[in-house]
């Protein structure tokens, strides 16, 4: 990445910040949008909700059946019907109860399964959409947004949206059925007893909602504190040599303890919040039950209700207890889906800054001439600070252009503009006369390849890494490219050869080996323009020399642009551009520029005669 881009990355990342201020109305819009997504699976949604309604109805009939059975048993005892009849009535109740239980189980299974299935399908669709979007969003977006934030969206926020159907919507239907119909049945059976039996509902619903929302807020806070702790640990372990070199283990333990205590305190507080409320909720439930027992008992004595009815009330209460406690989870699910959704949709709705023009045609290369015509550029985040000003040059097939200049001068930006990682803000870049903004992005990027300075290696085999841009390439081509990049012999020396896994979780390569691999992978693309963006810095001069001679044949058919600090890397170029403050201040061949005695000459002296005299001269001059 260029140092210019780093400058803009430190800007506040407000690209996604607006979503944090999600208002109520916006929250509802998001929930509606997720709901609409769910309904794109109409059959599964219907099965899930239908099963929920049937399962709830069946569950509500269980207390009635139990109560009836109790009454049947008792009425006989109280001298009612004859033994045989009573026996039969009990059998009927028992079988009915068994059937209802089994059916309820089946419908609950179907409810849960289809609710999950809808969620997983949504999750699948959103995963693909996220992946696709992240792959397409242009460099300027990725410069501004931390990769950690994108990972959070793609993993955690996606989960929040996925879970909304089963933990939010379906649960809402279930709760509505159980509490609504349950309350109706209770109240219509006996108003006073019904009110007593339901008296715990408002309190528990309120407490559980508040608790869940508080726990959620503190959870986010806790994650924040834990991530500080992990950072302390990770940096300590990564920089363990520095820690030991300064004998600062005690200081590091202090840092650890501070972060650790910070997190532990909150974890304790969360235990308190949770326990205070769950215990209180249980107590209020049992207290209502006690009231039902007391008043119900007196009603039984007074003959107003039967023991069976009392049993019905008590069983109803046990059935209602769980769902009422889950109101908090439901509220939490809505809250979570709405914040997660706003972040996720914020990403999915993001406009892709660099994409094909509506009438874009594939790039057609004949002569392969690259032209910069008065190109100016500024990063979108810092429009007032131009990085390039009126840069013009031309490069024909077979030519090599060297670009040199102090850090921050805009050299790397030139490399980033040609494959349209960023769009120019003034002037134009053409390839064989076609403005690169008028051709398809795919064809342009096949034609223009950049060997990045600090290239990303994928965690896979060396072979796959080299063939990254051309996965169907023949083995020989891969080996040839690797040979050009002076990597072949090294690879053959590895136990698994080209099948050796490299990257984050594989064999670690040295900086020079990584750069050679990157060069090989870029050569596989057979581009018309190849750009080396300070990509040989970690390769020793001699190996670089060998790579260059190996590539001589390769360079004949294309434009080569070399950006480097080390002059020996680009002295041989057909044209050398010295860039300073976004402008080309000197141009010509190596000999021209030396004869001119300007900035290039000064730099040359510094690198070739690194004596104290030159250091001082340059120090005073620069």
């Amino acid at each position, binding site marked *: 990445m260029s140092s210019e881009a780093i400058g803009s990355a430190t800007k506040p990342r407000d690209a996604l910040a607006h979503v944090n201020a999600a208002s109520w109305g916006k929250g509802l819009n998001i929930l509606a949008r997720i709901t609409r997504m769910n309904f794109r699976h109409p059959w599964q949604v219907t099965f899930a909700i239908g099963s929920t309604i049937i399962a709830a109805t069946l569950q509500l009939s269980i207390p009635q059946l139990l109560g009836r059975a109790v009454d*049947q048993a008792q009425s006989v005892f109280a001298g009612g019907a004859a033994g045989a009849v009573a026996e039969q009535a009990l059998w009927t109740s028992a079988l009915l109860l068994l059937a209802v239980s089994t059916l309820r189980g089946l419908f609950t299974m179907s409810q849960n399964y289809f609710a999950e299935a809808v969620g997983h399908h949504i999750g699948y669709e959103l995963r693909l959409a996220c992946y696709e979007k992240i*792959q397409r*969003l242009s460099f300027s977006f990725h410069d501004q947004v931390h990769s950690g934030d994108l990972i959070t969206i793609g993993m955690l926020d996606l989960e929040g949206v996925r879970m909304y159907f089963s933990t939010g919507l379906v649960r809402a239907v279930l709760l509505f059925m159980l509490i609504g119909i349950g309350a109706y049945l209770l109240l219509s059976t006996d108003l006073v007893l019904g009110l007593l039996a339901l008296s715990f509902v408002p309190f528990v619903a309120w407490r559980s909602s508040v608790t869940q929302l508080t726990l959620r807020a503190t959870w986010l806070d806790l994650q924040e504190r834990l991530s500080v702790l992990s950072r302390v640990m990770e940096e300590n372990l990564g920089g363990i040599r520095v820690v030991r070199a300064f004998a600062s283990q005690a200081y590091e333990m202090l840092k650890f303890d501070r972060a650790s205590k910070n997190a532990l305190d909150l974890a304790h507080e969360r235990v308190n919040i949770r326990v205070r409320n769950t215990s209180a909720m249980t*107590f209020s439930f049992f207290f209502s039950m006690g009231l039902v027992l007391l008043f119900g008992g*007196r009603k039984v004595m007074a003959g107003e209700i039967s023991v069976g009815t009392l049993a019905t009330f008590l069983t109803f209460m046990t059935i209602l207890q769980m769902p009422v406690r889950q109101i908090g989870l439901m509220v939490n699910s809505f809250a979570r889906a709405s914040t997660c959704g706003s972040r996720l949709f914020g990403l999915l709705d993001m406009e892709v800054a660099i994409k094909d023009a509506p009438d874009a045609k594939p790039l057609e290369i004949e002569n392969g001439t690259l032209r910069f015509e008065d190109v100016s550029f500024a990063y979108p985040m810092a429009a007032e600070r131009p990085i390039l000003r009126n840069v013009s040059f031309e490069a024909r097939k077979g030519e090599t252009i060297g670009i040199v200049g102090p850090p921050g001068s805009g050299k790397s930006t030139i490399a980033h503009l040609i494959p349209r990682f960023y769009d120019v803000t003034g002037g134009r870049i053409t390839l064989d006369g076609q403005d690169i903004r008028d051709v398809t992005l795919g064809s342009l990027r096949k034609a223009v390849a950049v060997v990045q300075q600090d290239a990303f290696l994928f965690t896979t085999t060396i072979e796959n890494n080299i063939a990254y841009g051309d996965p169907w390439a023949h083995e020989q081509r891969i080996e040839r490219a690797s040979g050009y990049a002076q990597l072949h012999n090294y690879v053959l020396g590895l136990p698994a050869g080209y099948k050796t896994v490299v990257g984050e979780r594989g064999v670690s390569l040295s900086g020079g080996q990584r750069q050679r691999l990157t060069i090989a992978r870029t050569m596989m693309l057979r581009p018309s323009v190849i750009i080396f963006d300070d990509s040989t810095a970690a390769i*020793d001069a001699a190996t670089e020399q060998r790579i260059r001679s190996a590539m001589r044949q390769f360079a004949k058919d294309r434009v080569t642009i070399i950006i480097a600090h080390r002059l020996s890397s680009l002295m041989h170029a057909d044209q050398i551009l010295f860039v300073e403050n976004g402008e080309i201040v000197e141009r010509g061949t190596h000999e021209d520029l030396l004869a001119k005695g300007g900035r290039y000459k000064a730099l040359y002296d510094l690198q070739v005669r690194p004596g104290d005299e030159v250091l001082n001269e340059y120090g005073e001059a620069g």
Partner: protein
Amino acid sequence: MAQGHAGELEAERNDVRDDGRRPPRAVVGSHRIEEEMFGRAFDKNIVKRIWAFVKPYRAKVYVAVAAVLIFTATQLVIPLIIRYAIDHGMALGGIDLLPLFIACGAFLLAILINYAASYTQETVVGKVAENVLFDIRRAMFGHLQRVSLSFMDKTEVGRLMSRLQGDVNSMQEFLETCVLSVGDIALLFGIVVVMLWLDFRLGLLTLSVLPVLFIVRLFWLPRARNAFMAAHETNSVANGALAEAIHGVRAVQSMDRQQVNFVLYDDKAHANLKTHLTAARYAQVMVPIVDTLTGIAMAVVIVVGGSMVVNASLDIGVMVAFLFYIQRFFDPIRSLTLQYSVMQRAMASGKRLTDVLDVKVDVQDKPDAKVLSPDMDGSVEFKDVTFGYNPKHPVLKNVSFRVNPGETVALVGPTGSGKSSAMALVHRFYDVQQGQVLVGGHDVRDLTQESLGRQIAMVLQEPFLFTGTVFENIRYHMTDATREQVIEAAKAVGAHDFIMTLAGGYDAMLEERGGNLSLGQRQLISFARALVADAKILVLDEATANIDSYTEMLIQKALVKLLEGRTGLVIAHRLATIRGADRIIVLQNGQLIETGNHDQLMARGGLYSKLYNLNYASFDDIPEEELQASAQSGSTT
């Protein structure tokens, strides 16, 4: 063209599966090398080790266990109270309210105890589990500060982090589970006992469904667990691929791999969908089974219990109590089988944790270790030092040299010559196998590591910065350094100017590992840090990577400043640095082959002069074959 390519890709993808054509050399993400997730459910040694961490809290644990037992007892007693109320306090037309009031009073008492017990148990367990978690983590972190660097060298940071996070967290889960299991087992036994006590025959009949559930669950558990693990695994695979797409997005776009990747990712996401649906089926299939068994148990109570009530051989209240118990007694079985998996996971994690805690500490202070005085002369001496990370393959063989106070010595030699090892020995990162390393005239093994570290400032090849401000980084751990000292040091090494251009100056936050600075800038900050540490001896490993010429010049100047008045041991790569040294020591294959100043070595015509005459700006630029040629001719002369 893009369209055509996608079409071709689609065809390719289908063809591969049908007619076995060559698949693309392409993957997204990587298959995680998943660690053993489940161990044995119980491993005595591991439990013993974990218990050592719980022990400080054992009084609380006993309280929690007592509370959980009391809590279980109240749960068992509540249906009994209801039964008493029904049978004794609700006679139709009865006028004696006393039994009902007694029942309700007992009920109130029971739920108050229930409240207190559940409050105590959950609070105590929750907090103790958190404490133990943090204690284990602290013990491991502290241990890692002391273990040998060779262990740290060969262990990835990511791996250690997953010990410190994932594995430690599963310990917490384990502790909470243990206490809950006690409660569940007690509840299960309690229900069985109470039912049998209320009515032996009816109890036995009702409980006959329990073994059925046990057997069903035994069959179900291993299969379900495989399904859950598959879901878990495909999830991390898909997430890994997403993370790769995010980190590698620039490479993906510059090689136009979006379409190929999308298709490959679709495979992973789809596998994830399928395994999750399977897992959901396994999870849900238990629901109708449990409900049917509950139905059977209730039917038994109604038919058998009901006819017993009809025959007046059973109180109606007992029947109601039975119906209550039935609704409860599947819960403990369900949670016990889940807890079994938690135990297994905890054992696997516990094993990995104890592995880390058992890593040997090689370098330790002697009991009578001396403090290295700041007034020592600052000399460094190697006496016949032999050392190897693996003692069988020494990287330094019989090396002897002395660096006099205030002298700057450059260590020079090809890669693998032992330069870096020599530097690490001065700081006693490792212990020598033979010979002695003396600092200020003392064997480093006789000194405390803390005092030795205070007198040696080290600058590593890869400057490592911590998240925090520039100011904090420069005065790293010298927390008593003032702002003036820090600024003075930064000015001395030439870092002041660029620091002032950062937003916030010295208070500018550095991103992770100083990502917002260039390598050269990070190097300068690490120089300033060494200057603030103000040690008698400076050990420096010069950066090899190419730094732009201007910063390079600043670094060269800073180096002169840094070495002023100090004993310097520099692993030098650049000729400018080497020539500036008072003396040069040339190492090859772990042996000291030449020593002297530049002119002496040139006159001698050995390896140094040969290397120098090849005319490379840095010794690391010299290609392997020329180096070998020089070395050979060097050894023959």
